[in-house]
């Protein structure tokens, strides 16, 4: 135990402390807004609604959290890549298949970048996608149910960080590998990284629910691919990615990957890649990966896929180009018009902005300064629109307000910098507490920003909240950007580490919210459609309990004839057809979580009774005045006992 701080972090903290001291006086005044004004701006009176839904990545929690803006109130944790005992996600038999991978069942991941589906470049409220970084996957969440419905694993990837970034009509999710690795994986010396390790850029078909597929993967040099954004309008057929470690270092990257003045933005013409694939370019390569989705029966189904199409730059001319970009660029953001491509060079002293039209011109003129593995490298000056001078320290990410201004997060100087597109002049700056990573304007990465607020997603809170031992909460901060000057309104804590976020006007989602699952459409193979069909069935050592739940009883609620050595499946169907009436189910002695069963759906808890006795089960979600009466007993007899199987309710 102890505190470890490298010299670098030491300096950082000193800088932060100095900044804090300077800024302390601002805290009472909140940049001139005054607490009363700020409080009024974020106050949502009891019973009234927020203006926006915000979806924050849970980072190392593996989940997505749903907040209201401007209030900063937490509404829901949507379990995605991590088990969630609170509602049985990853514990119930229906949801276990959703966490299957080519490595078997994986209970956790690190989720960074939520991405709303788009139509014509505008967020449309159908789905939210998010990446798993560690075991490369992307997930689709249905925004009528706020439930993860589909997860696709990505082969030939490691550290699925530049992911998932969406094209303007949700044709593709673009997902790239942060860590280059041997492709395909093989046993080889790490020291032979250079020239042998490779990266992949995956284009995932995303616009048909239940049918997410990798259309093709582009094999690229062994750099680290960091973040991405797809083009829009004029640049709609393109995707842009940052890369760093063009040095191809495999050790001590903080030094060895920071040697060059410029790395690359990769510009991928995916429309061109589509043409090449349609003409049969590339090759089908063996690869094992899983596709999981909730079927019409609302149960998870996992299928093993066995090949993927790989394209190399040589297979498809004019498909990919490199744009030199200073220095170890991190964020990559395209403005609402599709013309400007902004890269956040985290070690750079300027924010470089590339021009899409100049890029096309340079490609036409073959204005190249070289070539890497068959990929033309365009001349920096030929593609540059402008540089924002002296923006601050450590530019990372940029969002847009739709009124001609860009907002860039500065990690090291811990601030948001507002600058003007075209003039490249900084017009305002405001501190973030502390160490801002991503920032988010609702729609600020799309063709149509709702430029009223910007949310800072911070890595460090230090003194902002009551301390909670060594681990402190991470936080978000809300700023009003409707005027000339940015104005801090609110701090609110987050669950896990928020990386990126998305937000959408509440009106778009509120109307489409599901209230129930219709019982008559329940096609679960173990559904109990009416209390008259409640029963217990023995199949060898497997016992299936077909159970119903309604306010305020289970049927059956007395079960006998279970024996030690049996495996019992409680298939619980919630017969309610009313909004906001889930029933819970827990049984004593289960080495498992609970179930939360939504109205009209069936969920299954596996129970392996270990000891003879009589064990209660009960409803865990307060459902009515007689909730405390919603219980039952199951009798467990010794192995080989001759107690007959029986079940009843009310007798």
């Amino acid at each position, binding site marked *: 135990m102890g505190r470890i701080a490298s010299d670098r972090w030491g300096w950082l903290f000193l800088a932060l402390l100095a900044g804090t001291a300077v800024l302390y006086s601002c805290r009472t005044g909140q940049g001139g807004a005054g607490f009363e004004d700020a409080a009024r701006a974020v106050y949502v009176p009891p019973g009234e609604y927020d203006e926006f839904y915000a979806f924050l990545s849970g980072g190392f929690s593996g989940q997505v959290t749903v907040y209201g803006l401007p209030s900063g109130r937490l509404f829901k944790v949507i379990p995605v890549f991590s088990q969630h005992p609170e509602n049985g996600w990853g514990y119930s038999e229906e949801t276990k298949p959703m966490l299957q991978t080519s490595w078997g069942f994986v209970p956790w991941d690190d989720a960074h970048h939520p991405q709303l589906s788009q139509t014509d470049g505008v967020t449309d409220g159908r789905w939210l996608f998010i990446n798993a970084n560690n075991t490369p996957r992307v997930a689709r969440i249905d925004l009528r149910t706020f439930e993860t419905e589909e997860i696709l694993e990505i082969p030939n990837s490691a550290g699925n960080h530049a992911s998932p970034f969406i094209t303007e009509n949700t044709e593709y999710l673009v997902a790239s590998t942060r860590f280059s690795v041997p492709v395909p994986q093989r046993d080889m010396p790490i020291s032979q990284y250079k020239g042998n390790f490779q990266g992949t850029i995956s284009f995932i078909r995303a616009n048909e629910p239940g049918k997410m597929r990798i259309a093709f993967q582009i094999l690229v040099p062994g750099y680290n691919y960091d973040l991405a954004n797809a083009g829009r309008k004029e640049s709609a057929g393109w995707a842009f990615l940052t890369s760093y470690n063009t040095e191809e270092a495999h050790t001590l990257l903080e030094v060895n990957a920071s040697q060059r003045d410029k790395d690359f933005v990769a510009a991928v013409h995916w429309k061109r890649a589509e043409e090449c694939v349609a003409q049969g370019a590339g090759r089908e390569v063996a690869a094992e990966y899983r596709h999981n989705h909730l079927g019409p029966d609302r149960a998870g189904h996992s299928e093993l896929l066995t090949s993927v199409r790989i394209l190399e730059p040589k297979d498809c001319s004019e498909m990919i180009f490199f744009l030199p970009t200073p220095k170890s660029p991190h964020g990559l953001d395209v403005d609402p018009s599709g013309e400007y491509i902004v890269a956040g060079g985290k070690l750079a002293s300027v924010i470089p902005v590339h021009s899409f039209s100049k890029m096309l011109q340079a490609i036409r003129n073959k204005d190249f300064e070289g070539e890497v593995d068959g990929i033309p490298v365009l001349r920096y000056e030929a593609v540059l629109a402008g540089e924002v001078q002296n923006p601050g320290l450590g530019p990372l990410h940029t969002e847009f307000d739709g009124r001609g201004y860009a907002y860039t997060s500065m990690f090291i100087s811990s601030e948001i910098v507002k600058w003007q597109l075209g003039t490249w002049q900084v017009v305002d700056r405001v501190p973030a507490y502390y160490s801002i990573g991503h920032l988010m304007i609702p729609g600020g990465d799309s063709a149509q920003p709702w430029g009223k607020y910007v949310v800072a997603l911070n890595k460090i809170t230090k003194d902002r909240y009551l301390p909670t031992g060594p681990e402190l909460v991470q936080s978000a901060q809300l700023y009003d950007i409707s005027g000339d000057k940015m104005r801090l309104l609110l701090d609110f804590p987050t669950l896990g580490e928020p990386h990126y976020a998305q937000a959408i006007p509440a009106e778009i989602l509120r*109307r*489409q919210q599901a209230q*129930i*699952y219709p019982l008559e459409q329940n*096609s679960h193979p173990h559904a109990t459609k009416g209390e008259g069909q409640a029963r217990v069935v023995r199949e060898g050592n497997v016992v299936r309990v077909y159970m119903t739940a309604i306010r*305020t009883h289970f049927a059956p609620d007395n079960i006998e004839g279970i024996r030690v050595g049996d495996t019992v499946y409680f298939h619980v169907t919630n017969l309610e057809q009313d909004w906001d009436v889930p029933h819970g189910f827990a049984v004593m002695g289960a080495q498992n979580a609970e179930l939360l069963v939504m109205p*009209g759906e069936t969920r299954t808890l596996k129970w392996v009774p270990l000891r003879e006795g009589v064990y209660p089960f009960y409803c865990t979600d307060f459902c009515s005045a007689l909730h405390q009466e919603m219980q039952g007993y199951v009798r467990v007899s010794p192995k080989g006992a001759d107690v007959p199987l029986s079940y009843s309710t009310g007798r």
Partner: protein
Amino acid sequence: MVPVSIWRLRGVGRLMGLAWVVWALGGCGGESNRAVVAGGEAAQGTPGALTEEQIRNGIGPISRVEPGEIDPARVKRGEEIFALKCAACHRLDERYIGPPLREVTARRTPEFIMNMLLNSWEMTQRHPTVKEMLAEYFTPMPNQDLTEEDARAVLDYLRQARAEGGGGA
């Protein structure tokens, strides 16, 4: 399995859903309006002050039903709905969670029965007969998301059950 949203609900489900949204959107400062909107169009005046017709026929979307001949197709559909959505609490000939229902068409008007099926929440809150029943049976009848046609089918099933006579319990 397709989830249902407010906009896909029909009949009173939708009305109540919309009323709820309107109510929820009503905001502060409108406390007196809020009570009216929350109860739907029928909720005028103070709770409990029901019209004679409401006492007789219940509170809800059904003001007039011509029962006519018992329709066998409706009986069949009504029996299916009853097994799926009602039998968890009701038997025909014995008290279970709620009252036995074989003779319910003798006790209540067709309109009352359909309003109870379609608007159980408000009926339980406001109708004196239903409030008395709640005191006796404890568990309020939940909304089971029936359409008007579903409720009509259940009505015919219950009429047929009465016509067939008791099972002896």
